[in-house]
């Protein structure tokens, strides 16, 4: 408590303000007067008495300072004085202040925005109790291009019953359905989950309860839990909804409860949760490798991932032992069951991207700091004389240095303020445009962590910026500046040398960033221009779910598809129309192992899995997938009881090298039907990409006939010159004519749709390019500034040279040579750095090597040109000066 009382006393004194000095003077004056009186009494003259008293008392000013210091007033006072002086000086040089604050704000704002993403996505754990114990468990077949397959019911049951590492396990699958009944019909998206899902994640119902064990049995599965968001928007947070029934896809579901808002951190767009159910005993052992739902688990307290993985491996081994005929296939596929933290799994794909962006941001910040440093150095040089004078008047170097630091910290705090504002703006833009590059998550907010980061970065900038002028201050005899006076000939060759080497560093950093941006841009261009085998031009797409009870009969489903196909074809202005079960590059597509008549698998064959999809007549024409051989589906296939399959070139090459596949029978997921019922290969088409962009693995594809099965949700593709909106509304009308309960969704232009699948990559490219552009701008400003300053300080030299007969050309060449040296050194450093760092972008590139020479060369040439231009401008200006003006300038 003593320190507290001392502070109280101190502030008592501080509050007295000016009175402190008055009191002190009064006190000392009394003392001196008494001494003088005493001396006079001892017989001295008045003058002698005063001198003697003064001598015995000592230096009044000195003691006064000492008194102030004993109250700790000096530090506070001088700090206040430094700040006030700084404010005054900065007000005086508005251009300098503006340039510095703008540069810092840009750098700090950008970095703080990126940090906000990084912090939200990578650093902050999921908002569930002990969320680090939540894991996902999935099959992995790296050797056949499926490193991250999903899971299935047999795995779930096996691990639930036969391992002890997990306190909870749950299957999760995407779910969509039509909610209708009491109010307007609506397409909802969500998840079907097993009963343990909520406890595995670690959330409790906000209202009501969650699912119970029997809900995972088919038939008892009609229960639903609403997401907080959906409960709010559709049911106005009505507690009475619990226990009531809602209609989903024409069936009544009992609402059990409402999930808490925290679950939105994991599934931000989910509206509803329903029970994941199946018929007990309906699974064959092989279904352990038919992958669809995701399997989540919660590790028991104290159980590590390694222990869980070991237990899972034991079960895999047991399965492999029980199915010896399948063992070799698993080994060929490189099968392994992976146990990995949920958060890690969610963020692996963006981890590299985010660190890359942050690194890019920090490069820009460094470049910005160099510019500001150079500005500050120039300013400090201009103030040499002032510093010298202050030294002569008794200021310590420390005092001057402290003032320099106060000034730059003040500047960077201003920068931080504007930077935080820019950061908030940046996060707004990211929420709006850049969420595609992140895993599903609620909108980001610029929070305390981001602000602390911004301020920290600002203070660091302030320290960095003041260090150069301060080093210079301490490394030179200040007083000699007084001698040089205002007529200094070459203000600081040394400082120019420091600035020059900083500029080299700037050029190097800018080159590294530009190369990164160049590689990503080139890769993106290749991605856009890649041959996807599909021509989306003028194609409109929409998705139709047949959810009414009558569509449980396959015949009705097939009839609906036929009718809608016919009626669309009959519309005027329609070039062609087709139906497929999947939208290329966006929805999940079935995959499996195929077999064909006479197929003998060699033990070490490593054949990738085949994608299966179902399409109607007209599909290939509409999507522009070219027929290479044979024929495609016709309208009369069913009538002629012909069962066909169309394969792509890739599949033909893999399975039928040198053989004509047409006429052969083939099947995927063999073993279910007799060979005579297998469809016959009727045609070969060119390769087309059906997988998502980030999963490009070039899997072979088999197209089966749409009418051979009853998929109830499908996509219609229409090629027409008409406006997509018009096409959609016309078809919507056609659908409503047949069944008014059926919604139409995911509708629009196919080319826009395919383009949107690239949004994530586009954002990364864009952000890095912005960073690189800022880096280019800042470093060219840097080059310009240093050259201009160098010339400015050598005007007299230029004047002399011109006066004794140098030509303007010679002057230009002289200065350009120096700039050339700096630029070349910077470029060389940058190239080395870029090659060394290129491996960090490697995984983000498509169709281009990280060491692609042409990118490096063109960037180097660009930067060279910009740097030389930035130097040429001030040099040109200087060479036009008349010798007399230059000589008189000082």
């Amino acid at each position, binding site marked *: 408590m*003593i320190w507290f*009382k*001392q502070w109280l*006393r*101190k502030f008592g004194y501080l509050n007295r303000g000016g009175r402190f000095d008055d*009191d*002190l003077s*009064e*006190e*000392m004056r*009394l*003392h001196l*007067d*008494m*001494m003088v009186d005493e001396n006079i009494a001892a017989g001295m003259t008045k003058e002698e008495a005063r001198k003697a008293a003064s001598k*015995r*008392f*000592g*230096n*009044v000013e*000195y*003691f*006064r300072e*000492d*008194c102030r*210091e*004993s*109250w*700790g007033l000096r530090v506070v006072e001088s700090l206040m004085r430094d700040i006030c002086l700084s404010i005054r000086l900065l007000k005086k040089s508005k251009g300098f202040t503006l340039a510095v604050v703008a540069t810092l704000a840009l750098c700090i704002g950008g970095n703080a925005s990126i940090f906000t993403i990084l912090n939200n996505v990578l650093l902050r754990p999921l908002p569930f109790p002990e969320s680090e114990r939540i894991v996902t468990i999935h099959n992995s077949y790296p050797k056949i291009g499926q490193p991250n397959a999903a899971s299935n019911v047999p795995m779930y049951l096996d691990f639930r019953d036969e391992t002890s590492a997990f306190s909870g396990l749950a299957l999760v699958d995407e779910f969509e359905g039509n909610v209708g009944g009491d109010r307007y019909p609506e397409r909802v998206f969500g998840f079907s989950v097993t009963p343990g899902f909520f406890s595995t994640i670690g959330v409790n119902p906000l209202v009501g309860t969650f699912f119970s064990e029997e809900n995972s049995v088919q038939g008892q599965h009609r229960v639903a839990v609403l997401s907080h968001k959906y409960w709010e928007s559709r049911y106005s947070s009505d507690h009475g909804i619990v226990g009531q029934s809602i209609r989903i896809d024409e069936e009544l579901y009992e609402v059990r409860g409402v999930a808490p808002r925290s679950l939105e951190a994991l599934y931000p767009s989910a509206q509803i949760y329903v029970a994941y159910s199946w018929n007990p005993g309906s699974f064959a052992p092989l279904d352990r490798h038919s992958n669809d739902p995701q399997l989540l688990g919660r590790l028991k307290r104290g159980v590590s991932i390694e222990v869980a993985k070991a237990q899972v491996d034991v079960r895999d081994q047991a399965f492999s032992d029980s199915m010896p005929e399948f063992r070799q296939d698993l080994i060929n596929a490189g099968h392994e069951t992976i146990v990995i933290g949920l958060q890690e799994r969610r963020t692996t794909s963006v981890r590299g991207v985010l660190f890359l962006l942050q690194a890019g941001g920090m490069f820009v910040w460094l470049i910005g700091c160099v510019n500001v440093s150079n500005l500050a150095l120039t300013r400090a040089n201009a103030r040499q004389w002032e510093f010298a004078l202050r030294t002569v008047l008794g200021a310590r170097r420390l005092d001057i240095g402290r003032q320099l630091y106060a000034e730059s910290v003040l500047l960077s705090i201003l920068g931080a303020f504007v930077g935080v504002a820019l950061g908030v703006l940046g996060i707004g833009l990211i929420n709006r445009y850049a969420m595609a590059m992140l895993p599903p998550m609620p909108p980001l907010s610029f929070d305390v962590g981001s602000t602390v980061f911004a301020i920290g970065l600002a203070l660091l900038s302030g320290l960095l910026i003041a260090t150069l002028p301060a080093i210079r201050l301490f490394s030179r005899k200040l007083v000699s500046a007084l001698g040089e006076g205002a007529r200094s000939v070459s203000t600081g060759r040394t400082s120019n040398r420091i600035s020059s080497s900083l500029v080299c560093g700037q050029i190097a950093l800018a080159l590294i960033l530009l190369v990164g941006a160049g590689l990503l841009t080139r890769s993106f261009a290749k991605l856009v221009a890649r041959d996807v085998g599909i021509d989306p031009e003028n194609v409109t797409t929409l998705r139709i779910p047949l959810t009414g009870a009558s569509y449980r009969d396959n015949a009705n489903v097939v009839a609906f598809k036929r009718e809608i196909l016919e009626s669309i074809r009959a519309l005027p202005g329609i070039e062609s129309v087709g139906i497929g079960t999947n939208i290329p590059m966006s929805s999940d597509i079935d995959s499996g192992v195929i077999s064909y008549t006479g197929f003998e698998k060699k033990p070490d064959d490593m054949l990738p899995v085949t994608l299966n999809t179902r399409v109607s007549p007209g599909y290939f024409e509409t999507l522009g997938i070219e027929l290479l051989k044979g024929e495609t589906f016709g309208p009369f296939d069913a009538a002629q009881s012909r069962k066909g399959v169309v394969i792509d070139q890739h599949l033909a090459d893999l399975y039928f090298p040198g053989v004509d596949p047409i006429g052969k029978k083939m099947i995927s997921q063999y073993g279910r039907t007799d060979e005579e019922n297998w469809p016959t290969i009727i045609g070969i088409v060119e390769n087309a990409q059906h997988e998502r962009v980030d999963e490009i693995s070039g899997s072979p594809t088999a197209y089966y006939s749409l009418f051979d099965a009853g998929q109830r949700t499908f996509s219609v593709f229409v090629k027409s010159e008409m406006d997509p909106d018009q096409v959609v509304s016309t078809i919507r009308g056609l659908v409503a004519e047949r069944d008014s309960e059926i919604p139409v969704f995911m509708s629009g232009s196919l080319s826009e749709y395919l383009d949107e699948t690239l949004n994530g990559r586009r954002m990364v490219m864009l952000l890095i390019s912005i960073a690189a552009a800022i880096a280019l701008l800042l470093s060219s400003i840097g080059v310009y500034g240093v050259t201009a300053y160098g010339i400015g300080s050598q005007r007299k030299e230029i004047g002399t040279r011109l006066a004794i007969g140098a030509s303007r050309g010679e002057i230009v060449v002289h200065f350009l040579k120096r700039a050339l040296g700096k630029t070349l050194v910077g470029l060389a450093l940058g190239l080395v750095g870029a090659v060394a760092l290129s491996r960090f972008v490697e995984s983000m590139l498509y169709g281009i090597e990280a060491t692609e020479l042409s990118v490096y060369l063109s960037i180097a040439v660009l930067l060279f040109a910009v740097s030389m231009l930035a130097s040429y401008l001030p040099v040109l200006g200087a060479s036009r000066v008349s010798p007399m003006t230059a000589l008189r300038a000082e």
Partner: protein
Amino acid sequence: MKKDRKDLLQGTLDLLILRTLQRGKQHGWGISQIIGLRSKEALNIKEGSLYPALHRLERQGWIESDWGLSENNRKAKFYKLTRAGSRQLEEETAYWEEFVSAVSLVLQV
């Protein structure tokens, strides 16, 4: 080395001030007079250095100050020992005596 000597001197001055104020409140001039008298003018102190010491002691809370009138009716600042100051004086006196006797012992050898 130099710093140590200064600290020692400063500490000593503090001790002298505290001891002087034990006899009652006094202003700066008075304190210097009393120290001068008692030490028979043997201590050569710049009298001005009294004031930083007084302020330091006040900040520590060992003495308090108050404005009053001096013997010749001039406005003067009077200092007075606080309770914490009395304790401090005891401690410092004990320390000083120990210190002196220790040094004397060494010197007598």
